[in-house]
């Protein structure tokens, strides 16, 4: 009978991606309650070298597909490889990240396997082998709790929703070398180019402080002031979807349901009303500061501290004050 959890791993910058460490922690929790092993499938040239870090992160059994064809994610190459991993591991649960990979791959994998998929999970509970998955919907306005009636249950998990386990150096596990045997002539997608957004300064996902701007900034020039504030604080700059859709800031800096998830110690929301879709990307921030003209804005009401004022009047003196405190 199918048991245990299989994680479709991701590798970033030659290391196990943070989301994969988080998935292993989720998998350990599910397997701890429902039984079975935590398996991790890793793809591409780095797979074998990273098997031990997956074991130290909490994995029991690592499937390594080391073909260089799998280095960069493509639906056409990863789908058959992931399918093979599922068939060999025969898990009760398959986990992927709600990432570039998981968003594209998980639904397709689910239909290929004749099962169903729960996208964008942020919480879960396990009762007697059944997982109850909680996910935001209606633009973050509501939460749905669902259970999957077919096997395996597949889910994608939103990044930063669960903490990774503390790595255990020297932890032991097994590694099984795999070969997808993909015929390159069957790969129909062809990458013509990739453009990585220049991450100036601190990466949004890693930043301890994030300064974000919304539609209320009134124009792209507002972000210049935010960048100045961010540079004083050593912070990253984020933007609401409204601001990105208006072309005021690059989509790669978007925080929210359709953008990135952040969980900084301090989130400074400037001229952001706090629509659920934005909230979905920053709800786990430890402390929120809202700067907004509207005292009724959701962001103001749900912040820890708020200044009700036009940001144009507050940010310049705030930047000066912070410079004084820093020096």
């Amino acid at each position, binding site marked *: 009978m199918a048991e245990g959890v299989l994680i479709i791993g991701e590798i970033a910058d030659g290391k196990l991606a943070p989301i994969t460490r988080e998935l292993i922690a989720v998998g350990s929790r599910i397997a701890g309650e429902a039984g079975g092993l935590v398996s991790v499938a890793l793809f591409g040239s780095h797979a074998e070298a990273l098997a031990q870090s997956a074991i130290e992160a909490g994995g029991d059994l690592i499937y390594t597909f080391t073909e260089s064809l799998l280095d960069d994610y493509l*639906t*056409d190459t990863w789908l058959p490889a992931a399918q093979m991993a599922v068939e060999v591991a025969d898990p009760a649960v398959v986990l992927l990240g709600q990432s570039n990979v998981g968003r*594209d*791959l*998980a*639904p*397709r994998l*689910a*239909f290929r396997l004749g*099962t*169903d*998929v729960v*996208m964008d999970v942020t919480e879960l509970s396990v009762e007697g082998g059944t997982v109850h998955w909680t996910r*935001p*919907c*209606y633009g973050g*306005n*509501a*939460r*749905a*709790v*669902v*259970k*999957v*009636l077919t096997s395996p249950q597949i889910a994608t998990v939103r990044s930063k929703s669960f903490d990774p386990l503390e790595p255990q150096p020297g932890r032991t596990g097994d590694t099984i070398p795999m070969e997808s045997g993909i015929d390159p002539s069957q790969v*129909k*997608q*062809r*990458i*013509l*180019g*990739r*453009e*990585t*957004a220049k991450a100036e300064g601190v990466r949004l996902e890693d930043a301890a*402080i994030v300064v974000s701007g919304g539609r209320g900034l009134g124009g792209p020039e507002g972000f210049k002031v935010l960048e100045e504030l961010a540079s004083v*604080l050593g912070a990253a700059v984020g933007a609401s979807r409204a601001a*990105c*859709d208006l072309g005021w800031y690059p989509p*790669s800096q978007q925080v929210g349901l*359709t953008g*990135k998830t952040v969980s900084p110690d*301090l989130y400074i929301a400037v001229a952001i009303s706090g629509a659920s879709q934005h909230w979905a990307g920053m709800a786990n921030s430890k*402390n929120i*500061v809202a700067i907004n003209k509207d005292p009724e804005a*959701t962001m*103001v*009401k*749900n912040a*820890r*501290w*708020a200044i009700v*004022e036009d940001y144009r009047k*507050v*940010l310049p*003196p705030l930047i*000066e*004050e*912070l410079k004084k*405190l820093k020096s």
Partner: protein
Amino acid sequence: MKFIVCVKQIPDPETPASAFKIDPSGKKVVPAQGIAPVVSPFDAQAVEAALRIKDAQGEGHITVISMGPASARDVIKHALAMGADDGILIDDPALQDVFDPHVTVTVLAAAIRKVGEFDAVFTGRQAADWDWGVTGPGLAEVLGLSQATFAKSVTARDGKLVVERVLSDGFETVEIPTPALVTVSNELGDPRYPQLRQIMMAARKQITTYTLADLGLTPEQVRPRMELERLYIPVKESRVEIIEGDSPEEKAANLARKLREAKLI
């Protein structure tokens, strides 16, 4: 080229949070009074993506498909007024309040097969009600299509599609053969807004209605593969401290001090 676009009618996602209500026992959203349902915004952008190719080529045919109640005719009409050519509504009593994307995919795939030949299917990146993001890739799998998800632009070249995809850390341009499936992201830009004349012309375009039986589907085939156990609105606690001061400068100084005291800076 021949395109199919899947569109969905949903409660207006711009509904203010204060008007957003759930019936917990029925596990569904209660329509807000006086706020009309709309076409899911990503789906309107999917229609726009197909229209841009049709415009660039000077010819083509776009069929719009929606699964939903009789009122979903309105979103098909909206797409027809934008410039699509004909529409299909799948309306069946067995398809009330569908939340499981497996059901949606099964039904839409059957309708697409009934349409017959096509070059590409377009969907929104996700429906802005359930936010699953499953229908597009699910259709690609069931229909055996090449896929490109999260498109910010789509062009046709030598019978293939060139799709600029939005990634979390940038963009990727991918070429896929037809028949293909493309999911469209908000970065595509605003969809065109139909003018009165186009709305009137759209009234003459054909909308065919199918039931499950018309598509050769049995109720068994559209049985959900997941169970919705609970639907609720999360409670946000307000414990905000409004930073006071006689001037913006004083408020700024007070905030800076608070942040310092909390060791956040």
